[in-house]
């Protein structure tokens, strides 16, 4: 699984990093780490808009979004 660490970054960087990961590692599942609730929602929505499935898990005070086909 390809991992993107977007923790602590401002909007729209987490979404841009997710977009880049989908472009370059589109054949793999992708795990995106983010800190803020609005960031995971943005990443989740973006992944879904690209026809992917996205699952969100809380990890401590942060979040991971697992993006699968």
């Amino acid at each position, binding site marked *: 699984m390809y991992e993107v660490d977007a923790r*602590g*970054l*401002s909007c*729209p960087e987490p*979404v841009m990093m997710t977009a880049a990961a989908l472009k370059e590692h589109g054949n793999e599942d992708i795990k995106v780490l983010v800190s*803020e609730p609005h960031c995971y929602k943005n990443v989740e929505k973006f992944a879904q808009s690209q026809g992917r499935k996205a699952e969100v898990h809380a990890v401590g005070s942060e979040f991971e979004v697992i993006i699968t086909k």
Partner: protein
Amino acid sequence: MDLAKNKTTLLISGAILGLIAVILAATGNPGNMAFCIACFIRDSAGAVKLHTTATVQYFRPEIAGMLLGAFLIAVATKEYRSTAGSAPMVRFILGFIMMVGALVFLGCPLRMIIRMAAGDLNAYVGLVGFVAGIATGIVALKRGFSLGRSHETTSAAGAVLPIAWTFLFVLSLAVPALFALSESGPGSMHAPMILSLAGGLLFGIVAQRIRMCTIGGIRDLILTRNTDLFAILAGFFVIMLVGNIALDKFTVGFSGQPIAHAQHIWNFLGLYAVGFAGVLAGGCPLRQIILAGQGSSDAAVTFIGMFVGAAFCHNFGLASAAASAEAAGGPSTAGKVALIIAIAVTFVIGFMPKKK
């Protein structure tokens, strides 16, 4: 209830916020200003005598309400996170620059929408500049611009601005003699305190839930074709438009608009600076207040940058004059020079070569 559930709820939420602005304008806030973040911050800076322009001094309850509303709803929904450490001084400068741009245009992006909805064509010129600024910021982001990561910090740190600001607000009510209050001009025009406070609180709560951002709305449209945040702005615009028509305050034209000027190039460049600097800072002036309310010390520093910037704008004569029957208004020479320097600095921040 999840206000951010879909486009319809976002549109309705935007309309609710528009309604707050309509009500505050109808009950005393200045014409076409209604709910302007830049104007409110500038008036508050005047109230604590950071500047002494007698016509724009009033400790606006809306700002206290928004900070507190965002703080309380973030705590209630467990979205409060105390974070800090992402290039604070760069954010301060970006906040400062946003204020220089906004006060040359005479309004933040929210007031741009309010002015657009009142038929002020100068605001449409500003919109073109705003979009161009956002597009420039996106180019910088695509080239790898980043302010770096923020980190979680002691829980109380994120509450400093909301609490300190609330204290100042209470002080302004308890010992008003400590504060300056305009007797004429925009600072003297305001809705009843309790309405302004309630409006600000509700605005802060709703804006936090729906992540409202005037820059994000356009940025996401360009960057990912996502229309969620844009829907909020559309709802806000439509209700303001309906309100202005109903209250007979809709007049199409460049001249005769309340607190505005028709210097096109400077209206364009003013909001160009706000759009560009705001993309780099991760949100518009309104969004910075909400982020500061939910625990971001970085956004709080951006807010302080706007607050100090507003004081500088008036102390150094950078803010534009509104057009009147006697004068065309617009920025002073100092204001023009400052804005050009501000834009140049934003380019340096956004396009500085990165360390490999």
